[in-house]
């Protein structure tokens, strides 16, 4: 299987190399920049799909497509160790799908200095592919930073309203989250005595000689809050709606859709397997804060007037499900979280993409100033309804989301049965804010503001250039929903080989 390991490397390297290429061709005219940059997003997708097809679900316990490269840091136990397992593969593929959609949309944007924008986005894409392919914790972290820094730049330079404030707030929060988790990871490294950042070696080492309970406890706390900030765990979420509200759409798609999953992925693949006894102390914290995500943020989402902020809050709300699924500590719960991460990544990217298209037509994100768009742009409204229904977990467009949520519900019921009432309430709350948004934007009569803006900017329906990126995301959603086994087969095997999840299974 390791024959194709180079494809993993290529899917990280290709966007990075092409990012610099876009700077080279910047004087060759717009089409050249577009073709080059879109290639940079298309290649990882092609490689990822190929790897997905080749992946053998019965890969015993470990990783497929493994490659190890010395980067000159071997004296501290760091090497570029890449590979994919059943947990990372679906996210790796999802990252490449969202990447292509975001890239296609960015390539046609009218932003100034579009080549620099695409450069940032391609660097980010490279980091994203690297995050999910890293077996080495150091590089796992490194790739996250590689993706994060361009995000700040893109928000600060190409962002919308309040961009400098948003960029600053995002930087503070996310840097802090990343630092806390880095401290936690270093603590594990130092205390384990394995002298290696390699996840597989660390795991083997810690299985033989686990860390003392108090160390596990502190380290897990650091990782939980560090990752928690990155995943917008309540009440450390305030950067998210603000940041996404200001971010240019492609950056928001990649960050909310993919990069945000870094924290959850870190908990599932790194924190819990390495610190199996650490979570016990924090269980109540996770449960209560995650309930804050579902219930408090659910209500907050209902109160939003700004479409993009509302989508941002809805995404924060869904992270509550993910934390609860993780807290359940079972193959079912964590498996559900992985499916939900994939589905949510595609859905939220789609919603940010479409909300920008709405903005181009209404010149505003204020939902009170919209209305009646369905008559003028029926295709756009069909896409948006589809996306919103997916987001609220309606089986159909949101079948994948539904599988994730249902698995989490089942796992949570076995974990703490009383929680079920609180979290299933989320399906009512999300229906309320989701349908409210659809009704305000698309149905009813046109508002005066909207009529006014149409005089300056006539409204047209979605063009094909706009449809293609949205269609890519929708097709991916439908595919995962209707053929969930393409994900769950390998997922089951990988999670079952993780003793900490498998042991709690009945």
């Amino acid at each position, binding site marked *: 299987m390791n024959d194709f390991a180079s494809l993993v490397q290529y899917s990280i390297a290709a966007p990075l190399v092409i990012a610099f290429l876009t700077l080279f061709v910047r004087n060759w005219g717009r089409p050249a920049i577009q073709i080059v940059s879109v290639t940079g997003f298309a290649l990882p997708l092609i490689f990822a799909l190929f790897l997905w097809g080749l992946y053998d679900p019965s890969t015993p316990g470990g990783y497929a497509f493994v490659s190890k490269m010395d980067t000159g840091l071997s004296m501290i136990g760091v090497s570029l160790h890449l590979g994919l397992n059943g947990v990372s593969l679906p996210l790796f593929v999802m990252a490449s799908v969202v990447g292509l959609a975001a890239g296609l949309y960015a390539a046609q944007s009218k932003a100034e200095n579009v080549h620099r924008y695409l450069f940032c986005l391609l660097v980010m894409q490279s980091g994203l592919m690297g995050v999910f392919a890293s077996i080495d914790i150091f590089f796992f972290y490194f790739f996250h930073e590689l993706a994060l820094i361009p995000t700040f730049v893109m928000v600060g330079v190409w962002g919308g309203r309040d961009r400098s404030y948003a960029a600053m707030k995002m930087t503070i929060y996310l840097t802090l989250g990343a630092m806390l988790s880095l401290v936690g990871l270093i603590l594990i490294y130092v205390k384990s005595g394995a002298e290696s950042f390699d996840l597989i070696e660390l795991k083997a080492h810690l299985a033989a000689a686990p860390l003392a309970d108090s160390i596990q406890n502190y380290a897990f706390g650091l990782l939980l809050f560090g990752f928690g900030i990155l995943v917008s765990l309540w*009440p450390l979420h305030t950067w998210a709606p603000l940041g996404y509200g200001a971010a240019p759409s492609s950056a928001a798609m990649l960050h909310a859709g993919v990069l945000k999953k870094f924290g959850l992925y870190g908990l599932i693949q790194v924190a819990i397997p390495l610190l199996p006894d650490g979570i016990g102390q924090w269980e109540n914290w996770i449960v209560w804060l995650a309930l804050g995500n579902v219930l408090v943020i659910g209500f907050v989402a209902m109160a939003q007037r700004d479409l993009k902020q509302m989508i941002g809050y809805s995404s924060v709300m869904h992270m509550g499900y993910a934390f609860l699924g993780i807290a359940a500590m079972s193959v079912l719960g964590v498996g559900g979280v992985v499916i939900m991460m994939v589905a949510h990544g595609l859905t939220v990217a789609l919603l940010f993409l479409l909300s920008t298209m709405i903005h181009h037509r209404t010149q505003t994100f204020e939902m009170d100033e919209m209305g009646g768009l369905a008559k003028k742009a029926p295709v756009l409204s069909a896409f948006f309804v589809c996306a919103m229904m997916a987001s609220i977990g*309606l089986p*159909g467009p949101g*079948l994948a989301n539904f599988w994730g949520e*249902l698995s989490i519900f*089942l796992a949570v019921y076995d974990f703490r049965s009383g929680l079920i009432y609180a979290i299933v309430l989320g399906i009512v709350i999300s229906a309320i804010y989701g349908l409210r948004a659809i009704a305000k934007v698309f149905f009813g009569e046109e508002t005066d503001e909207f009529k006014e803006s149409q005089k300056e900017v006539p409204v047209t329906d979605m063009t094909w250039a706009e449809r293609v990126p949205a269609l890519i995301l929708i097709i991916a959603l439908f595919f995962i929903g209707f053929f969930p086994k393409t994900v769950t087969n390998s997922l089951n095997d990988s999670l079952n080989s993780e003793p900490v999840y498998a042991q709690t299974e009945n």
Partner: protein
Amino acid sequence: MGSELYAYGLLAFPLLSATFIAFFFRRSGAVASGISVGAAALILATALHIIFRLENFEYNVSWIEIANFNVEFGFLINDLTKLMLFVVAFVGFLVHVFSLGYMKDDPNKARFFGGLSIFMFSMLGLVLASSLVTLFIFWELVGFSSYMLIGYYLDKPSAAAASKKAFIVNRVGDFGFLIGIVMVFSAFGTLNLSELSHSEAATTTLIGLLLFCGTVGKSGQLPLHVWLPDAMEGPTPVSALIHAATMVAAGVFLLCRTGFLMTADALNVILWVGVATALVAGFTAIAQRDIKKILAYSTVSQLGYMVAAFGLGSLVALGNGDSHGDAIVTGGVAAAMFHLTTHAFFKALLFLGSGSIIHACHHEQDIFRMGGLAKKMPITFWTFTAGLLALIGTPFITAGFHSKDAILALAYEQNTLAFYCLVLGAILTAFYMVRLWKIAFLGSPKSENAEHASENGLVMTVPLILLAVGSILGGFVWFYPEALRPIIALGEELNHGDSHTTVMIYSIVAWVVGLGAAWVFYGAGAADDKLESVAKPLHAVLAEKFYFDRIYDWYVAKVQQRVAVAIHFTEQIALSVLIIRGMAGFAGLIGIGLRSLHVGSIHSYVYWFIGGLALFWALAVGLF
């Protein structure tokens, strides 16, 4: 060829139709309507093949597997499925044909017919589903198609509001339903319906009631019935198909599918919810002016009968110690499904008839602005009358009489109070329907539109005639082909118990009283509601629908939205000022002092924030 291919076909035809319309014929309504009606015809043919030519069968294929949770996609075809399949395919086809006429001049009819196809797909999936999860998936999808079609007239704010309300109220019911499914899985370890029915594990009242929540939402039972009358904002054929004959009856179908998960306590609750719904909706219907609203409340009321029938009959079965298991059909299921079937005929007929009227009267829906339609629209008049006679349970010659009597007979044996309530409900039914009939059809026209009404074409009247036949003959077992008989016969048999003469007398008296009272009370083709002048307070309560909508509107606007805004506000203040800045301020006090809070440099913010968070973390792990 495997039997399951036909079942796949049933799903494939409408899905392909919807897909083709969405991608290729969005702008060509004529082609779209042709495709959709063609798909409905194929569905009918396939359904008939499954019903008559195929044995009962079950087919499952693994769909998703995570740990011990696995869901199968599959079909469970038994007598219950076949009966429901017949209703859906038959009424569905007729409504499609009727729509060809009704929607002829609508510029967006491609969207309408596409929506109908999606609905057929979802509804058939619901009927065929072999597992609770698949059933739930299609259950949500019928809700979605209903949402789309209620909101069909995009620029009407009332339609947008009604579609939103329908979806959200249904989700409230699904909240319980989904928790019920989670609990069923936890208790039984499977969600496959036939495995569940053979399981030894014990069910609980809570599980039964949670599953029933789904029915309360979808079948418009108290207190979640409020969405159904509002759903009449959709085009009338949609009201006939989705909000009268099939989707709203899915809740009853769900009960029949999962009857073995009910306990006696749960059944008692179900029974009384059904009875209360039948009465409240019956009273409400008396004071409505809009022809479709009257029919909608009537639907709610009749669904109450079906739910009560299920509760009553299943209680009898539990009392006799009959196991639900393999046999599936108990008296409760039989009575509920019998009434569901006849109701599908006559209520679809009444809605299509009202559609025919509304179409002819240029979208006039107020019965007090109609009048004298009997002469202008003879076919509509006579078929509508047939449906009406069936609904009010005209003795001996109509379907409604037989199916309603089966329910009354069950009530008479099981629960005297429920029996009297249901008899009162029957009086109300006769009363509000005769009121409608006399005011809309007799007398002289009360508006310009009614003046110029004329009969519609064959494409609209033939479905009416066919449904009228069903409404009259659907109460007799011999009317049904062999394959559909088992459940109908069992339901009809309930009418031949020891007490059948007594029950019949009550039923006939109720019919006479309700009909006579309305006949005497309301003038032919009246222009005003006499009840309003005679008993103003009573009329006010009824016209306000017992204030359910008022209370919910108040809750949404004054409670829910304000709470949301308040939480948002508090959160903004608390988080950005108190916790984050406060923590930074705390660290700042110790170190540099409060003033430097406002230097505005990212660096210092980061440090304070870290300090605050470290403190937070230290507190959390209990260092202090």
